[in-house]
């Protein structure tokens, strides 16, 4: 068999397999108590209309889609260079536009103005709450984790722990937990911001100093353990943290500067602006960090720890500082959430939360501040939409199946994220070219 037909056959088989998989993924659930094959059976033999044209079964729909995909793939393979050449002016346009400083500032100004007017366009309170709780706060969390994972290259699997520390210290200091507030003197929620941030940071440093000495992935395991401990602690110590119920009465934010008094009430709009201010502060601050002495030291350690040490960089110190900045952001997100929702309970801080934030960072582009912010908006918006409207037979339990598929596709086609950090992209590229044809090295992790 000639080489061309063989690769064409391979593509056809892959398209068919992917089609079958998509059919199962989007098909009817198996459910409990029914034979395991019913889900699969239903996925293929359920009756559907063929794009509203005629009635058929699902297998036919997905078979034709797979063949269509195969035809497209075959066409693209044969004419890839022509397609790429024709598309090049279009694909290069955005980066060429952004290369000019004025254009960049115009874009930023437009984004800021549009964001400022969002509450005018969104009339449903429900969606405003969603934007604040599910998008605003999560941008902050993702930006914080990005410092740890993206800048310093440390894998933190327990980010939720710092989020919980921020939220519970708010509840503690405002005196709404079963434990009395320190010195029996509850303080306003706004004052909890520095306290929650500082506490989370201290925990981060205490956790970081012994573990960051070690090389490799010990940090991932330790942070994972730490998150599980915190999760367990807040869930079971009813006498201290309120147990599974948590606290339902965290006071709202209240700014009292003597001459000026403002109280955040029930309407989500003021929270939106509060969140907006903090997102802007985070964006500016972390951009400054990235291009500072510290940011460069983080890159140096991430790329080559031995070389970094040889020019006088103390890896431990910089790793701990990255970890502390991340922890502080997590704590900040916790305080904000507590003041925002007004009630906190352990389900908000489960292990899943750490994974979710990590997914936002990976999706947006590790180390890319704007990428992470945009990635957080996209992923959080889509998941909230799916959760609330459940279109096309989507079911809540399926979320991670789709996210898993999304991540696999991302890793194959865009490993550096949707809006990659330039430095990170180069690192991945260098790694690939350095290891071309040396699969053993890639597998065993040998250095080039």
């Amino acid at each position, binding site marked *: 068999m000639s080489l061309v037909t063989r690769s064409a056959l391979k593509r056809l088989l892959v398209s068919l397999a992917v089609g079958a998989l998509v059919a199962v993924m989007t098909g009817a659930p198996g459910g409990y108590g029914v034979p395991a094959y019913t889900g699969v059976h239903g996925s293929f033999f359920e009756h559907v209309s063929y794009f509203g044209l005629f009635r058929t079964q699902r297998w036919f729909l997905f078979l034709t889609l797979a063949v269509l995909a195969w035809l497209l793939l075959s066409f693209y393979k044969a004419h890839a260079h022509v397609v790429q050449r024709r598309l090049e002016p279009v694909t290069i346009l955005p980066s060429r536009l952004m290369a000019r400083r004025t254009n960049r500032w115009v874009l930023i100004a437009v984004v800021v103005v549009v964001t400022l007017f969002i509450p005018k366009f969104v009339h449903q309170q429900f969606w405003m709450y969603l934007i604040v709780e599910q998008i605003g706060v999560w941008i902050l969390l993702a930006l914080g984790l990005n410092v740890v994972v993206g800048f310093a290259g440390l894998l933190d699997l327990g980010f939720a722990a710092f989020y919980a520390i921020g939220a519970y210290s708010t509840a503690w200091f405002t005196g709404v937990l079963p434990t009395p507030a320190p010195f029996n003197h509850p303080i306003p929620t706004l004052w909890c911001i520095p306290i929650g941030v500082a506490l989370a940071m201290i925990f981060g440093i205490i956790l970081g100093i012994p573990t960051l000495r070690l090389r490799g992935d010990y940090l991932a395991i330790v942070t994972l353990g730490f998150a599980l401990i915190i999760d367990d602690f807040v869930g079971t110590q009813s006498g201290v943290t309120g147990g599974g119920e948590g606290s339902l009465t965290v006071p709202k934010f209240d700014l009292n500067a003597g001459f000026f008094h403002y109280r955040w009430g029930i309407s989500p709009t003021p929270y939106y602006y509060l969140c907006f201010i903090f997102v802007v502060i985070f964006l500016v601050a972390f951009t400054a960090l990235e291009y*500072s002495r510290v940011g460069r030291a983080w890159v140096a350690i991430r790329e080559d720890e031995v070389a970094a040490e*040889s020019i006088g960089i103390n890896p431990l110190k910089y790793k701990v500082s990255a970890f502390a900045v991340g922890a502080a952001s997590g704590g900040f997100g916790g305080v904000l959430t507590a003041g925002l929702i007004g009630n906190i309970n352990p389900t908000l801080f489960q292990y899943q939360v750490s994974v979710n934030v990590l997914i936002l960072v990976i999706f947006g582009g590790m180390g890319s501040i704007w990428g992470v912010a945009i990635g957080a908006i996209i992923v959080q918006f889509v998941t909230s939409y799916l959760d609330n409207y459940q279109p096309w037979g989507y079911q809540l339990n399926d979320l991670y199946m789709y996210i898993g598929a999304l991540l696999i596709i991302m890793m194959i086609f865009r490993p550096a994220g949707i809006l990659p950090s330039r430095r990170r992209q180069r690192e991945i590229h260098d790694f690939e070219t350095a290891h071309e044809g040396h699969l053993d090295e890639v597998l065993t992790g040998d250095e080039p």
Partner: protein
Amino acid sequence: MSSEILINVENITLRFGGVVSLRDVSLNMRRGEILAVIGPNGAGKTSLFNSITGVYQPQEGTITFSSSKAPPLSVIGKKTHRIAQLGVSRTFQASRLFSALTVFENVKIGAEDHTGIGVAGALVKGPRTRRGEHASDRVAIEMLKFVGLFGEANTIASQLSYGARRRLEIARALATDPQVILLDEPAAGTNPSEKLELTTLIRRVRDEREVSVLLIEHDMKLVMSLAERIFVLNFGSVIAEGTPEEIRANQAVIDAYLGTATEETSA
């Protein structure tokens, strides 16, 4: 060249489990000299470098470094980054640049002061942070001009030619304002004309920047033309030391490099 001793290695022994990498090695380096360490593969040359820079901790012996910034002190037990801050800088056998950064950024990182924490400074960007930025910019530009890479300042480090990478590594090491620079096979993998450039550059490092040079190299022509004194290592021990002429005539060195019939009986 003054007679002041800059690095004094005394009777160090370095073991990895049962394997002895360095056996009772002593070596002294004077301020302002170009000193070479040669020897066959596996003789322990890089282990010696790693011991001086704190990557490995020898089990026995002492290493003293007499910085002009501080009184003579023992290097053993100190962390690598601390030793680098004291003024011992190095390059690596396989070049270890920060390949995703530009040429300029690579050198600037070397020039920066890494003793503070810096996060607060980076966020506030006060006058002190700005002064620091300007100072390290100046040093980076100066070093790039010194090694002749200023024209490539905005190139990504991984796109440089092999010889240019070597020079960039030297620029990065020099940017840390060292008293001594340890070069681990700087000419490995370079072509003859690059080798010549490198020889001139290394001599200029000593003459113009007044940085002492400790050199490991296999290329005998380069070593003989550059080094003022040579130490020869074989199987983890110093077997000879002296000027290039003395080393060239030394029977033990010739034996080590060519192998002899007597070696088996004596070993």
